[in-house]
């Protein structure tokens, strides 16, 4: 007869999951566990009558141990006891153990034949393992006193080495307990490696306190009539690896991780921002239109979306822990916990079962939780609302939700967040959001590019500040230097304000001269262009000499079918018209497997950035390229247009693309537009080195320093860990720029359209390398023109030579005066 166990919980799902977890400990033997959890209608709650029934079912004469979660579970269990027959009541123990730990320990203890009182005592002691694990040194959790050594005469001792990959964790520990239970012997174990005290081998909760990891040496001390049997049983068990399969996992002890990437705050977007910390998510994601399907399919969609967000969050958390530290990584735990919250998930599933769409059910469920938090007076708890909002939005996005980007807005003050998606950064209103402080991000990430484009000062990689800055605290940041000060003293604040004034003055001067050409001190004209993603961008391009890069993807993204030739023509024409006669450089569609278009199905790629993208995709889908070139040719008949092919690696690709262009010219029919010039993007290192081979076939080369940097340094742009490595001022990258710029001449313009062009300090270097066009975010154009006006070309050439000879990027930064 074994002791029965009853689990009382508000949530049936929680109880059943806990039982499943405990059943793992029994290697397939059935656990005698009854559940009294939740209400009949599926809601949360406890029911004293149901508890009484469960106890009656669980009782086989040896008694019942009841484990409860909290609150009404305890009250209802007590009431159930009151309502019960005296005879049964005497055999029931209400156990104060924590539910999950207690249940697992109780299950093993009951299985080994312990009495109800013993089971309850074991379960109650189960917390000790966790307390001991989490406490440091001598502040260890209260533990039963160690039996005096003399109480155990005639000991047999032996040692074994822990082999299971995760140490003597729950299941191997349970094997130990089973091996010695029932033997007439007093067996104690001691972790020699950690020099712990000896604990009884028959107690699961005590064995767990040994903290025995793989490789630790454990001492067995046994006394009593069957001591030899007990020792032999344990040694056999140890030899067989405690029945655990070795998956080859490395020991969990890890050396201190190497620090990579920004170890502290770095500059993300130049400018001074001063304002109250605003920790909330940038913009709520809209709830997508309901999708057809029965509740089961909606549950599936929800589960998938939650699992995806969970995996993504875990990845971010792990990366943060690895690169920065566990404390900083902890800021993601709250969100992970929310995704794991069975009450929350059950409530949402309940809505789905009532016929609500997955996305709506999720949004409503989370909004309710968020409201609960925002209604609380306490600041810390209120800040949790931001986590709720963030998790809500992340899952909604996986369920097809969008918005935030289009809605505009943002927060009033300094936005403090873990990270921003490009869409969120794009939605920020510079009038309201005076600065951004991110835990993650890299200067080359899309969100940083967008923040610079919007002239919102930003500091990134500031995990510690993001972790600690309370809502509403004043934050001063300098996005040029990467400084962030929380709650600055008056003097510091004044210093930041004076920097802001200087900056504003310089901007005013720059804007006053924006319409004038940018001519160096020695009379060399350098074109300054604007990078555009829409006609609206063009209107911001005050003072730009041309549109040096129009990202035509804006026509193609977010649609289920490709845009027609007419639609594209209208869009390009609108930009050309907004540029009022200035040259417009249209880059053909540049997408790849990282963000595939719905109407361009692509096989999954292990590394989309080295996959079918840019011109490779265009030549693969000639229909798309043909139509786009037709639209461009039409516009080129009326406006000065530069046409640019992205991701060109070989001359053959360029020639093939030019053939498609020739076809398009024939299709449009009015002959070759006089003002149409053709160029390529130089993003692939090989292309930079082969620039001379391309030169006869193009009117210009435009160096995309963002991609050139990531390919040259084998450092992915979006990988925060590589933010410091992926520096376009690395002398290796500059050598490639020099190689491309080396073929420049009267008939061949070499431009830079990457983020490097917008770095005012880098302007002399680029000009010195031979670059004669810089294309930057529209709002930066005026400032870059001012920077050009300060350049002396002979001095710039000397600077370029020094930079090319520099050993590393840091030296180049110093050369530039940083």
């Amino acid at each position: 007869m074994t002791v029965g166990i009853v689990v009382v919980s508000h949530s049936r799902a929680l109880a059943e999951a806990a039982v499943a977890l405990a059943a793992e400990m029994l290697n397939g033997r059935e656990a005698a566990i009854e559940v009294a959890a939740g209400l009949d209608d599926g809601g949360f709650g406890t029911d004293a009558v149901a508890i009484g029934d469960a106890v009656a079912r669980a009782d086989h004469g040896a008694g019942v141990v009841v484990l409860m979660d909290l609150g009404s579970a305890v009250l209802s269990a007590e009431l159930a006891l009151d309502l019960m027959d005296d005879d049964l009541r005497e055999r029931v123990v209400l156990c104060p153990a924590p539910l999950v730990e207690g249940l697992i320990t109780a299950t093993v203890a009951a299985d080994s034949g312990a009495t109800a009182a013993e089971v309850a005592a074991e379960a109650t002691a189960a917390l000790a393992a966790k307390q001991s694990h989490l406490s440091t040194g001598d502040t260890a959790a209260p533990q039963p006193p160690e039996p005096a050594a003399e109480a155990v005469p005639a000991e047999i001792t032996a040692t074994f080495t822990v082999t299971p990959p995760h140490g003597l964790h729950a299941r191997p520990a349970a094997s130990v307990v089973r091996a010695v239970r029932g033997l007439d012997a007093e067996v104690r174990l001691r972790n020699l490696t950690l020099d712990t005290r000896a604990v009884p081998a028959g107690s699961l909760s005590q064995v767990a306190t040994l903290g025995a990891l793989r490789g630790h040496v454990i001492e067995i001390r046994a006394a009593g009539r069957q001591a030899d049997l007990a020792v032999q049983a344990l040694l056999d068990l140890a030899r067989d690896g405690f029945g655990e399969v070795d998956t080859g996992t490395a020991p969990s002890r890890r050396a201190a991780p190497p620090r990579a990437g920004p170890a502290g705050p770095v500059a993300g977007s130049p400018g001074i921002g001063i304002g109250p910390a605003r920790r909330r998510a940038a913009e709520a994601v809209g709830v997508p239109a309901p999708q057809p399907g029965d509740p089961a399919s909606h549950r599936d969609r929800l589960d998938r979306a939650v699992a995806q967000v969970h995996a993504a969050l875990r990845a971010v958390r792990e990366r943060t822990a690895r690169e920065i530290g566990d404390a900083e990584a902890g800021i993601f735990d709250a969100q992970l916990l929310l995704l794991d919250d069975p009450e929350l998930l059950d409530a949402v599933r309940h809505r789905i079962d009532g016929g609500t769409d997955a996305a709506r059910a999720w949004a409503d469920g989370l909004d309710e939780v968020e409201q609960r938090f925002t209604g609380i007076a306490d600041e810390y708890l209120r800040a949790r609302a931001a986590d709720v909002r963030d998790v809500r939005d992340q899952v909604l996005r996986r369920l097809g939700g969008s918005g935030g980007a289009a809605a505009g807005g943002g927060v009033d003050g300094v936005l403090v967040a873990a990270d921003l998606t490009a869409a969120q950064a794009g939605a920020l209103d510079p009038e309201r959001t005076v600065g951004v402080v991110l835990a993650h991000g890299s200067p080359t990430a899309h969100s940083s590019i967008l923040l610079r484009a919007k002239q919102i000062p930003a500091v990134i990689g500031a995990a510690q500040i993001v972790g600690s800055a309370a809502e509403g605290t004043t934050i001063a940041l300098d996005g040029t230097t990467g400084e962030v000060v929380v709650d600055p003293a008056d003097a510091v604040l004044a210093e930041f304000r004076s920097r802001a004034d200087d900056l504003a003055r310089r901007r005013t001067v720059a804007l006053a001269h924006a319409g004038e050409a940018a001519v160096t001190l020695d009379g060399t004209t350098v074109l300054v262009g604007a990078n555009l993603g829409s006609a609206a961008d063009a209107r911001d391009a005050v003072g730009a000499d041309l549109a040096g890069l129009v990202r035509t993807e804006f026509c193609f993204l977010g649609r289920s079918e490709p845009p027609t030739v007419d639609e594209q023509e209208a869009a390009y024409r609108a930009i050309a018209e907004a540029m009022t006669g200035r040259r417009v450089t249209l880059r053909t569609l540049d997408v790849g497997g990282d963000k595939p278009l719905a109407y361009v199905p692509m096989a999954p790629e292990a590394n989309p950035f080295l996959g079918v993208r840019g011109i490779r995709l265009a030549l693969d889908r000639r229909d798309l390229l043909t139509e786009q070139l037709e639209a461009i040719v039409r516009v080129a008949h009326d406006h000065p247009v530069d046409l640019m092919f992205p991701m060109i690696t070989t001359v053959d690709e360029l020639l093939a693309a030019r053939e498609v262009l020739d076809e398009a010219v024939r299709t449009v029919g009015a002959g070759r537009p006089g003002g149409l010039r053709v160029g390529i993007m130089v993003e692939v290192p090989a292309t930079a080195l082969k620039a001379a081979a391309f030169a006869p076939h193009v009117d210009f080369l435009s160096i995309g320093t963002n991609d050139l940097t990531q390919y040259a340094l084998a450092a992915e742009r979006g990988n925060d860990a590589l933010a410091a490595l992926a520096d376009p001022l690395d002398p290796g990258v500059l050598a490639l720029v020099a190689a491309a710029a080396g073929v420049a001449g009267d008939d061949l313009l070499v431009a830079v359209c990457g983020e490097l062009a917008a770095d005012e300090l880098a302007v002399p270097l680029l000009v010195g390398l031979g670059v004669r066009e810089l294309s930057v975010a529209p709002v930066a154009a005026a400032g870059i023109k001012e920077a050009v006006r300060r350049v002396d070309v002979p001095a710039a050439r000397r600077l370029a030579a020094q930079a090319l000879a520099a050993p590393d990027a840091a030296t180049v930064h110093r050369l530039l005066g940083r």
Partner: protein
Amino acid sequence: MGDEQIDAAALQSWLRAFARSVAEHKATLTALDAEIGDADHGANMDRGMTAVVAELDATEPGTTPAALLKKAGMTLVRTVGGASGPLYGTLFLRMAPAAGTADSVDAGTFAKALGAGVEGVVARGKAELEDKTMIDALTPAVEALEAGLAAGDSLQEALRAASAAADAGRDATIPLVARKGRASYLGERSIGHQDPGATSAALLVAAAASTLGVVVGG
């Protein structure tokens, strides 16, 4: 004088009035609970009292007050779900034996029964006065009821005083720190919020004052 008789029909009126009152104040109760608890008190009590009314509707004629109270208690235990289930359930379950086996009880017996029920709640929840719980409304109510009857007031007068005492007790929970239930997790942050349990308990006493001892057609 408090010599009015309370029969099963009168108790039914009380419970139904309480059910209506809970339904009317459902949103308020939930909102109060949202501030310091888990935002389910209104919904839980409404579910429970709706089930109680359904049981009352199905009650056979001739049911004694004790049987009626027991039925109400068991129904609350089974249907409320939150901590108010076992607590309100206990209140009625403990009132039942004190009501004896007669077809009706007098005012003094009713007061004793209510006192026994409240003692049961105290024992169940292990709460004391000023722990910011339903006790803060119920205990002063019972004291006022007993004092009123002892002073020779009519049941209705005594219940009105009890209701006023319950309301005062409810209001007095606002500045208190919660020491029981989920609100206790908030500690000092629970200050400034009215306790939802005390609020529903005051509704229970108010329902008694509006239904018991009222002289129909008087």
